[in-house]
């Protein structure tokens, strides 16, 4: 505020307006999520997997019959739902970030040179991307779960399979556009090698696009993981994955609604925050990017 008094009003406005437009709530929720995931053992009141059959299906604390020992109630096996939701953040984030990291990197590594070199390499890539996009990945996930058994690795592989062509497509399109620009021609005239042009000149210009795409894809990945887990072909059950927890309450919903409700809210808030952040980034950085 002290600074604000000294600078001319117009400049303050320019500083303040973007700040006001920053999606504070989504950022706060995401920050909270990351902290929750990191500090899960400290924050969780109990164990996410310990069963207590004497305390089965306790309702949340504020409902009659609930107790503050189990703020969000317990599930069919007497496990503390709050602790499970907190640990679930770990699984959700770990799976989605790993999958996006691997899939995104692969997509970029394939598309960047292909887009830049063009010609036959590029055509081949685009065919591959088209085919990859038209493979229903969830079915592959199901097959994987039956043949190799459900596992973290299987879920990550499925999401990677889902994500990489989307990155490849976007990166290739951007690369095609960027390589037409004058500073690339200048770099060539200056004698930069291809690798140098790709890394130093083209890649930094892709960063805004990648940021936007990633924020939206992380949300999609979280939903995908949760969906697979819900169906029973994702994270194997005792683990407190949010999708698994929603499935736990599936048949109890009429009597014990809290079992499914809270993990669902966790997914909703996380994905909503990511999407809002992504939309905001897109408007800021890359208004032309379509959601693909």
């Amino acid at each position, binding site marked *: 505020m002290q600074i604000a008094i000294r600078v001319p009003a117009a400049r303050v406005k320019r500083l303040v307006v973007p700040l006001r437009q920053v999606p504070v709530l989504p950022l706060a929720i995401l920050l909270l999520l990351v902290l929750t995931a990191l500090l899960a053992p400290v924050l969780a009141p109990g164990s996410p997997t310990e069963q207590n059959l004497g305390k089965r299906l306790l309702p949340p604390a504020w409902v009659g019959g609930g107790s503050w020992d189990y703020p969000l109630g317990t599930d069919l096996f007497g496990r503390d739902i709050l602790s499970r939701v907190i640990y679930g953040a770990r699984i959700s984030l770990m799976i989605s970030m790993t999958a996006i990291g691997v899939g995104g990197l692969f997509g970029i590594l394939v598309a960047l040179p292909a887009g830049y070199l063009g010609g036959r390499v590029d055509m081949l890539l685009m*065919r591959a991307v*088209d*085919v990859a*996009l*038209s*493979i*229903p*990945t*969830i*079915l*592959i996930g*199901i*097959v*994987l*779960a*039956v*043949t*190799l058994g459900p596992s973290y690795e299987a879920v990550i592989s499925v999401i990677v399979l889902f994500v990489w062509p989307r990155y490849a497509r976007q990166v290739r399109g951007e690369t095609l556009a960027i390589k037409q620009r004058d500073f690339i021609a200048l770099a060539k005239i200056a004698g930069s090698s291809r690798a140098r042009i790709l890394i130093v000149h083209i890649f930094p210009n892709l960063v805004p696009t990648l940021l936007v795409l990633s924020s939206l894809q992380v*949300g999609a990945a979280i*939903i995908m993981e*949760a*969906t697979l887990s*819900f*169906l*029973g*072909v994702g994270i194997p059950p005792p683990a407190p994955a949010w*999708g698994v927890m*929603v*499935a736990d*309450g*599936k048949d109890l*919903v*009429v009597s014990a*609604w809290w079992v*499914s*409700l809270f993990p*669902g809210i966790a*997914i*909703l808030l996380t*994905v*909503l925050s990511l*999407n*809002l952040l992504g*939309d905001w980034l897109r408007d800021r950085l890359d208004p032309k990017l*379509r*959601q*693909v």
Partner: protein
Amino acid sequence: MGRYILGHIVQAVFTMWIVVTLVFGLVRLAGSPVDILAGELASREQVEALKQRFGLDKPLHVQYGMYLWGILRGDFGESVITREPAMAEVLQRSWASVQLGAVAMVFTLAMALPIGVYAAVYRGRRLDRLASAFGILGQAVPPFWLGILLIWLFAGQLRWLPAAGKSGPASFVMPVIVISWYAVAGIMRLTRSTMLDVLDSEYIKLARIKGLPEHSVIWKHGLKNAAIPVITYGALIFVGLFLVGSVVAETIFTWPGVGRLIILQSVRFRDFPVVQAAVIFICFLYVTVNLFVDILYSYLDPRIRRA
């Protein structure tokens, strides 16, 4: 035009081949294919018969050839549970799935297109704001969770709709909402944004200059142009979502379709032959729908049709 369609048919066939090969690879990757194909309860004779049938004692490329040949004839082996041909189990349930999918598809388009168009036409007004709020919120609500909330409300609290199974028209309501949920939100947003671009264009101005009534400006000149990106982008994203939605909805609402079959057989019984048949069957539908959309797209866009 002919070349365009041919190109897409080739790609569709190629995609199918990739999926089929992927499935083959995954089975071999898992170690003993005999255990997977026969199931845990198979007798020694059954295992032997299976080895014969799929050539499991022969080299890999021969196995692969036999596998492809089997698929081309529709032979996916037998269910490890019922010992019926796997494909028959799938086809038996396909009609229920197709019915549900078709209703959901019609519902999606009937909701998403008009809302998207009106939101663009009345940009910034209350309808538009409501629609975009729904669009943003809608894309964050996981359909499987929505399904459970719906059951709680409509079957539990209000007792308006049946919680499970396929009976009368009422039983379609909740599964259709779950399947269409994402697609409605997404297609609506996409329609709105492309329609905004289109309404800004010079040819819309010219249509008005001609003295055309507003409904023909919007629904004829506007929507036909907006439909092209909506179909290309839309199909790409939403056919996949539809598929996931169907599997999810059939599982939640115990719909007697292929989606539920696949989950039931894979999770509870590990009945691989049926899962494999179902996966390839759904893939086939999926690829076919995509192909159909591509052809529709080429029909809508004269720049491709006349090429």
